[in-house]
């Protein structure tokens, strides 16, 4: 029979029945249920197994604090582990599965751990798996890994999408309970921009769970109508299913909105949204969390928090048991008994730890045993509670025990900056203290105001006090606070039942009092921790795992502190709390990633010729964020080397075209541009004539080489600098630093134009013929447009263009730039015009081969640990002027003649294939670091020479041309004899460049 435990009342929609399954069993519930309330309605008391001892566990709470009822939701790739059943909304077709068990939930094979519990105390792992050492990798670690963790990941890609967003508010209100709703109502009426976040799917907080009245109306009804009026205010945004999980600097808050988790799998919209909320002011009205009392076997299924019992009865119309007992140290226990009696649920006992007469009317509790100054000393029932035992030995039947040890204000978010909570004796708990996050105030139960009337006024006043500081807002329209009675809330600190006398000692090892249900931390574990010297609160947490894992000790922390205080002879405020850190509740990694995953992990930058390259068989390679053509395979080519060799050979014998748009371009203008360049480059630029280009080397202030490139003096007071692809952004940042921070008096202006111009290298002996066919009326003869010339001109009948006669390949070469939007057309035009000249497109691989053949540097050589002198450009560092890095490049260590210098390498065996990363060792010397002479930085197969060649750094390299050493690669187990040679393998005198 389904829904056996339903009782009258509640805020569920009984007209909307929903079917779901738990461990394969088909069950039904109603719209408005959580998975937990629906399970309880169907008499499913056993819902999980504890982490360490695999003890049978049931639902403890009715909210985010739940330590026990963690389940897997969904199937296949959508299976989500460790979902709190108390938070998961019921929806049609929901599939829930219990976790952390081997075999069935009722007959978990790992329950053997419980019998071994005397061996599994705190610190067990640290003490046990020490020896034999060899056992760690093969035996211990696999065994521990197998038993570790709770739920299982699907191990499949997440099919859902996630998003991120920004929100702005004058006032953010966290929590829509009585204080939060009162705050929102007051603030909303003033016209301020208000965001009200509630982690539940229904606003109201405890108003939905108690039989209270607000403004003479039923409290839940008041919450619903108030929320409705808030939703109708255009300046108020009510966000349910939204957890504010962190309070960050300067009024920034992180919030997770669960958009579709309450309806199951949905495509076409984000499943969850991670919001970054910027709020000028914030009211934290996050309520309070009830805490349990420690007594022997207090973890059996059916033992619940009293407030949760009221929630299930009053909000969900579910009786958590047929015969309920209550154990309390405050007046809430009595309210629980009265609420249950009003729902016609049998109360078997109310045990008050205080020596006080029952507060309020007890006429409804006839038939129940009422115990004053009493205690529950033990409980029985394997998979479900059967009875409880009192100190005098009497047993009382109960299938549900409602426990209330008082309430802990949810101070969490108030402590995310430097706040440290302070102890309040009258409620025996911590309230927010110290320095709160900027702009935050705390109201209601979160601030220790645990009664309704006070909480409502508190929320109202907190909102007004926060808004008062904002000049543009008038508080006249705020109205009066809602009114309600303050219920009685007297609490007397009572943490745990004293353990039994010595007569029970024999079985005492198995008699445990649980503090932290999720991590199976007992009173004994905390005592052991103190005994072994770990008595500081942060140490106790790490040693016992108290307060760790998914619930972060929401129900257990303060109780744990009380036990620690007792065991170490200190007071709770002396001990203090552990540090609270975000997140308040778990945030999926998927939500933190948002849309930034897979291909969208970061932006992809495409070159202007990308479409053309795709059409022409290009293979692409990632270069930073860029996708560049690596080579262009042609039919019949079976290896990439064949392709690259062809591209190199064709370029060196006819003409090749390569997209070099990715190189950084910086436009420099102003009357002091030349002076500026002199200061940022190691060599001199102010003497460069208009219409000329010069190669420049840029140092870092510490004297090492930073970047290289060419700068063209394109017009009076106008230069165009190029940087390497990788350093385009850092160099621009550096130049702005120099301009703004070092020499603001210079008249110089910078714009990054990397993406404004499409630029192509046109290289090879027939490149001039190709360029001549493209330009409109520029004389490109060697005399009129010599090597290192540049011009602003037009191509293809009037298209603005810049032409530079520079060469990275070592051939007669040009670089031609046009506005980016013409880049695709220009590539197509170059290919069609060049067809009769034998033009070939070449990719980054051929580009690399040709620059190595020519001995040009790239990032492989400019590593940040090499100097201008190391790469053979020491003479470029002008001694006639100060420039960035000039002074420190003259440090003795950087001028040491023993430093490795850039040279070329040829394998003695011409068939050998050199490897970048190999290190140079003298003949006959051992391959050890002490004998290291340098390293190979770049290698390529040179089709021009017909063998492998390399560039590398070797000690005093320039003096050692012709010498033979070994290139050793112990990582790959390779070694080759190599001959040191000039780095310029092709056309060392540069005749081709100037042809």
């Amino acid at each position: 029979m389904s829904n056996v435990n339903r009782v009258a009342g509640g805020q569920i929609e009984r007209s909307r029945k929903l079917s779901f399954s738990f461990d394969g069993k088909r069950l039904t519930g109603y719209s408005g249920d959580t998975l937990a309330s629906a399970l309880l309605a169907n008499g499913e008391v056993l819902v999980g197994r504890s982490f360490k001892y695999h003890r049978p566990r049931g639902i403890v709470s009715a909210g985010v604090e739940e330590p026990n009822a963690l389940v897997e939701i969904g199937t296949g790739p959508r299976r989500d582990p460790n979902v709190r059943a108390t938070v998961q909304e019921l929806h049609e077709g929901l599939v829930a599965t219990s976790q952390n068990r081997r075999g069935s939930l009722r007959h978990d094979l790992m329950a053997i751990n419980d019998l071994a519990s005397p061996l599994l105390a705190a610190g067990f792992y640290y003490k046990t798996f020490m020896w034999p050492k060899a056992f760690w990798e093969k035996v211990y670690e696999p065994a521990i890994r197998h038993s570790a963790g709770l739920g299982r990941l699907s191990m499949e890609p997440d099919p859902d999408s996630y998003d991120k967003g920004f929100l702005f508010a004058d006032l953010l209100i966290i929590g829509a309970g009585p204080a939060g709703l009162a705050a929102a109502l007051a603030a909303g009426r003033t016209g301020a921009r208000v965001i009200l976040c509630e982690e539940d799917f229904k606003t109201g907080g405890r108003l939905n769970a108690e039989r209270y009245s607000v403004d003479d109306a039923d409290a839940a009804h008041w919450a619903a109508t108030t929320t409705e009026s808030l939703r109708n205010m255009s300046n108020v945004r009510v966000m349910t299913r939204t957890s504010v999980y962190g309070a960050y600097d300067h009024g920034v808050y992180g919030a997770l909105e669960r958009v579709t988790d309450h309806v199951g799998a949905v495509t076409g919209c984000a499943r969850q949204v991670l919001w970054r909320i910027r709020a000028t002011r914030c009211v934290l009205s996050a309520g309070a969390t009830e805490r349990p009392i420690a007594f022997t076997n207090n973890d059996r299924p059916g033992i619940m928090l009293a407030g949760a019992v009221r929630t299930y009865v009053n909000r969900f119309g579910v009786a958590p048991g047929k015969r309920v007992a209550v154990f309390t140290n405050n007046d809430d226990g009595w309210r629980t008994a009265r609420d249950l009696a009003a729902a016609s649920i049998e109360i078997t006992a109310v045990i008050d730890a205080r020596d006080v007469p029952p507060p309020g009317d007890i006429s409804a509790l006839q038939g129940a045993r009422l115990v004053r100054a009493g205690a529950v000393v033990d409980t029985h029932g394997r998979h479900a509670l059967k009875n409880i035992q009192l100190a005098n030995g009497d047993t009382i039947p109960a299938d549900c025990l409602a426990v209330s040890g008082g309430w802990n204000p949810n101070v969490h978010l108030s402590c995310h900056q430097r706040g440290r909570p302070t102890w309040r004796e009258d409620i025996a708990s911590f309230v927010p203290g110290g320095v709160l996050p900027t702009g935050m105030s705390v109201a209601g139960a979160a601030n220790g105001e645990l009664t309704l009337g006070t909480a409502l006024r508190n929320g109202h006043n907190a909102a007004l006090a926060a808004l008062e500081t904002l000049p543009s807002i008038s508080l006249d329209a705020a109205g009066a606070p809602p009114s309600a009675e303050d219920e009685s809330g007297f609490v007397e600190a009572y943490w745990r039942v004293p353990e039994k006398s010595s007569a029970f000692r024999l079985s005492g090892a198995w008699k445990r009092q649980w503090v932290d249900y999720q991590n199976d931390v007992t009173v004994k574990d905390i005592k052991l921790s103190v005994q072994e010297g770990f008595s500081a609160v942060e140490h106790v947490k790490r040693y016992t795992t108290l307060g760790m894992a998914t619930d972060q000790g929401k129900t257990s922390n303060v109780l744990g502190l009380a036990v620690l205080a007792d065991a170490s002879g200190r007071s709770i405020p002396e001990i203090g709390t552990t540090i609270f850190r975000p997140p308040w509740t778990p945030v999926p990694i998927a939500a933190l990633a948002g849309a930034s995953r897979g291909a969208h992990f970061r932006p992809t930058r495409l070159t202007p010729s990308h479409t053309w390259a795709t059409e022409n068989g290009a293979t692409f390679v990632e270069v930073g964020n860029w996708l560049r053509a690596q080579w262009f395979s042609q039919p019949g080519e079976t290896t990439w080397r064949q392709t690259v060799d062809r591209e190199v050979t064709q370029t060196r014998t006819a003409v090749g075209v390569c997209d070099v748009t990715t190189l950084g371009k910086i436009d420099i203008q102003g009357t002091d541009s030349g002076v500026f360049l002199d200061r940022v480059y190691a060599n001199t630029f102010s003497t460069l004539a208009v219409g000329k280009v010069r190669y420049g080397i840029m140092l870092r202030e510490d004297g090492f080489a930073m970047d290289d490139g060419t700068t063209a003096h394109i017009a009076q007071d106008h230069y165009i600098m190029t940087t390497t692809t990788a350093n385009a952004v850092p160099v621009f940042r550096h130049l702005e630093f120099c301009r703004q921070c070092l020499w603001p008096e210079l008249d110089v202006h910078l714009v990054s134009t990397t993406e404004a111009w499409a630029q192509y290298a046109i290289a090879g002996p027939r490149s001039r013929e190709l360029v001549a066919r493209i330009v409109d009326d520029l004389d490109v003869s060697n005399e009129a447009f010599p090597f290192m010339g540049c011009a602003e001109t037009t191509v293809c009948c009037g298209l603005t263009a810049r032409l530079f006669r520079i060469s990275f390949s070592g051939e007669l070469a040009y670089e031609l730039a046009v506005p980016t939007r013409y880049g695709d057309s220009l590539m197509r035009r170059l290919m069609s015009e060049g067809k009769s000249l034998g033009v070939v497109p070449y990719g980054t691989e051929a580009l690399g081969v040709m620059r190595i053949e020519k001995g040009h540097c790239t990032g492989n050589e400019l590593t940040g640990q090499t100097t201008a002198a190391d790469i053979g450009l020491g003479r470029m560092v002008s001694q006639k002027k100060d420039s960035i890095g000039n002074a420190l490049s003259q440090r003795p260590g950087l001028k040491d003649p023993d430093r490795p210098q850039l040279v070329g390498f040829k394998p003695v065996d011409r068939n050998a294939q050199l490897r970048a990363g190999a290190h140079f060792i003298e003949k006959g010397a051992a391959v050890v670091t002490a004998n290291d002479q340098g390293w190979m930085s770049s290698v390529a197969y040179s089709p021009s020479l017909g063998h492998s060649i390399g560039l590398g750094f070797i000690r005093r390299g320039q003096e050692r041309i012709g010498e033979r050493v070994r290139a050793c690669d112990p990582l790959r187990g390779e070694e080759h004899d190599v001959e040191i040679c000039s780095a310029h393998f092709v056309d060392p005198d540069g005749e081709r460049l100037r042809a």
Partner: protein
Amino acid sequence: MQIPHPLLGLRDASEFVYLGDASLLNRPSVDDPAELGSDATLDAFHEYLHLRHNPAGVHKELWFHEQGDRSWLVVTRDTTTHEILDCALARDVAGASFGAEST
């Protein structure tokens, strides 16, 4: 964090790139190129580049509005609280000290 940009108002810290101690504004000047490699010059640059204060408290530091208007800013921040006490354009700060030196 949010940085009160003098031209653009409050901007999210994620738009900025952090550099460090604003003493980097005070680059030693070498008027005589012959002094470039001298011990005094090397010492001055070594101190400028490598020796920084790292206070727990108020700190003047350089931030670059890279995802914004490319202003270098001198931000005065309390490193223990992240409170931002002042924010100025670096070129104004550097310009003021340049002016002071030239008079």
